[in-house]
């Protein structure tokens, strides 16, 4: 991932690249972020000497990858332009509240008097009948083409860009940086000890090669740390009792710790998930046994990731599983 060549930290006053294990975690997040467009759901078990920064770095990879990937990265204007230049009758999926309904594109109309443009769609409602909907331009992410795999359920909101820093721009490039600050969506949810995760996202200084400094939070924009009203890309929860979203599932769920994985894995039954297990945890063996029981029960199969990811760094053991259809 490009971000890895730019992101580093300070050691003895100068920039050094991220350690190999940290780079690997970002790569893993990137790989999962890319895979999130396909229907295959991954379960990754990581046994690490310390959990610190692992979940944060995996989330970084997910968020950056999903912001960079064209399937997720069209700006509001670009997405609107695509819809506007498509012939009426194209099959689309439309988000209405927390539901996703099928429909067809009708066309674009300028409402005049400074009220802006709207997109007309005809949707099939849950009773099987048809109804027309007018979607304002600023909410056009609610409409996606039916033949493309998107996270249709995501509730996307547009925001004016806020908090764009040179650190973020240098790390991920100006276009991706703008996209990150432009709209909110949940690419990743991390369950774990919130105080520890918050400290990792906010207190550790990271550097770009050109000298801009910042924290991981600047990029991953974790809710609730990012601040009310500002667009977010990931969510932190201290307990698995919290629902990540109303309705549809988020693409990637990270369980930071064996206890969290054991109590919450059912919440990620329809999504890709990563379990970060510190070998010194008292529940480590139970968590590994749970993952192996998925394998024995035929719910998942082993995946060979050679060629997709670098070899695992010393000290890490990883299991890559894929949910069976």
């Amino acid at each position: 991932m490009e971000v890895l060549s730019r992101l580093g930290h300070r050691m003895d006053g100068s920039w050094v690249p991220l350690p190999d294990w940290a780079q690997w975690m970002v790569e893993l997040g990137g790989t999962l972020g890319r895979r999130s467009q396909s229907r295959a759901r991954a379960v990754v078990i990581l046994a690490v000497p310390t959990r610190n920064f692992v979940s944060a770095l995996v989330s970084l990879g997910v968020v950056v990858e999903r912001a960079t990937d064209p399937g997720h990265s069209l700006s509001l204007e670009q997405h609107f332009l695509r819809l506007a230049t498509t012939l009426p009758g194209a099959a689309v999926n439309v988000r209405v509240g927390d539901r996703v309904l099928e429909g067809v594109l009708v066309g674009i109309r300028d409402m005049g008097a400074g009220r802006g443009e709207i997109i007309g769609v005809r949707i099939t409602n849950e009773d099987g009948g048809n109804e027309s909907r007018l979607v304002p331009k600023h909410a056009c992410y609610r409409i996606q083409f039916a033949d493309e795999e998107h996270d249709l359920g995501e509730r996307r909101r547009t925001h004016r860009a806020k908090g764009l820093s040179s650190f973020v721009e240098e790390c991920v490039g100006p276009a991706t940086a703008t996209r990150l600050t432009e709209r909110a969506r949940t690419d990743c949810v991390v369950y774990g000890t919130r105080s520890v995760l918050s400290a990792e996202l906010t207190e550790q200084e990271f550097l770009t090669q050109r000298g801009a400094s910042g924290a991981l939070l600047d990029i991953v924009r974790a809710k609730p740390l990012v601040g009310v009203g500002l667009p977010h890309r990931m969510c932190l929860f201290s307990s698995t009792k919290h629902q990540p979203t109303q309705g549809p599932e988020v693409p990637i769920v990270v369980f930071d710790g064996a206890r969290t994985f054991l109590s919450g894995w059912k919440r990620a039954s329809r999504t890709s998930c990563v379990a970060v297990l510190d070998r010194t945890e008292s529940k480590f063996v139970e968590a590994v046994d749970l993952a192996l029981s998925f394998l024995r029960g035929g719910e998942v199969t082993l995946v060979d990731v050679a060629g997709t990811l670098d070899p695992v760094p010393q000290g890490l053991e990883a299991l890559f599983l894929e949910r069976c259809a």
Partner: protein
Amino acid sequence: MSLFEADRLWKTCRGLHVEVHEVTHGPLRRFCLHCRDFLRDNASEEDLFWRRLGAYTQRLRFDLAANPTSFAVASEGAAERVETYRTAVTRRMRGYPRLAQQAIDLLEAAGSLVASAEAPLLEHIFCADLLQCEEGRPVGLVVPEPRYLSALRTELASLELEAAPLVTRDLASQDTYARLIFSGPTAWYPDSVITSPRASELVFVHFDWVGPDRPPRALLPSEDAPGWSRKGLPGLVRRTFKNGDDPHEPELIPDMEPTIDWTALFSDVATDGSSGEAASLTLGRLCVLEGGWAVLLRGYDEGRVYAISFDHDDVSIRDMLVDDLRRGDFVLLRTEGGGDYMVELAWAYLGERADIVRSVLRHWKMALGDRLRTAGADEVARELTLRGATAANAINVRAWSGEDRIQPGSRKDFDALMDLLGLGESADEYWRMGRALFRARVRAGHRVRSLLLKQVKECDLGKLHEQGRADFRVQDGGGEISAFRVVALAPEALEVPSYRIQDPFRLADA
């Protein structure tokens, strides 16, 4: 923890070197062999005296082989116990001539060791220069039991040896060492000491009949490359240090770690505290605690107990499932005031309503108790299921009849129960009463937790881990609540009077 500190922990995994040093000691080996034979020969003995003697010598054997301090220090107080046992064995010589002779031989072998100032493991550690390191970073000496720490610290100080006495729990922190020396084989420690090492050099020092030095378990079990040659493991260098006075061939003695004779303990529980008065029965799970204590915890499904939870540096008090308790956890029990303070406080919260709620509960629980006595738990469970209950089984219906469990958690189960007992018309009112008590218990639980948490956070956690027990005085007349380290949890529950639940008691052989 900073990224730099996290990276330091990852770096210890690189270039890891693991050595095993096997040392020998004739008298201790002979005692261990005697002990093995004695345990094997009296395994089916019904007289609890012999089983207790077996269990005691098994613990003594482990202390002598695992604690690197001198034998006399490692077995503190044992000389007197050995002598007491010797007298008792002599008295049984006529009834059990063969077993008694075997026991006398065993106790004689023990007697000479417990008076000895020899410390073969520590001597080896010193002579092999394992405490020396060039990097200026500390060397850690890890022992398998926290109760060894205090004596070890004193002995190291008196010998002016510089090493940090540690237990496994200390190795979950971010501290790293130049070298870690473990007293005992790898099997006595969790895999994490090797797979998440806190030093790049690990040395396991133990007697040559102790073992095994098994490799850590792989995340994905595979038969392709078993053992220490597995990919990702550093391999194992084994070095044997013989001395002339014990030129035997090494023979591994299995099961060196003390085990718990649950049959003998259950028998103690059955005879202890039986006042003869009629008391409601409930399921209790026997839990052996540090320092020769034990307690009966709620043994039914979903039975819970308050425990101190340590998540690295974060301390909290959790309402844990008894099933989830593990060796090393700390349970919180009332040691002054009797019973469960949380239950007592809940009744107090109900105020004037307490009497009504109590009488309502007593009414239907007595009716259920009568039904259980006449029809049996299985039949009652079957009848409840026919009436629409979903969680009715023999264990649950017995638990519902006890004082400890308020009522079924599901309204469906409760309605079926009321219907069966002919109390269907009062079901709504009785359900509300039960829920009121439940809410009061939740409130009481929060109160007790907040009262204790402050004290637990302020106490010396290092001392708590080392001693395995700490006492906390609770405000509001709550008496004293103690944190006890869990040594073992019985594999099954037994039926006990409900007043004995959560009431810690001394074990007979403590």
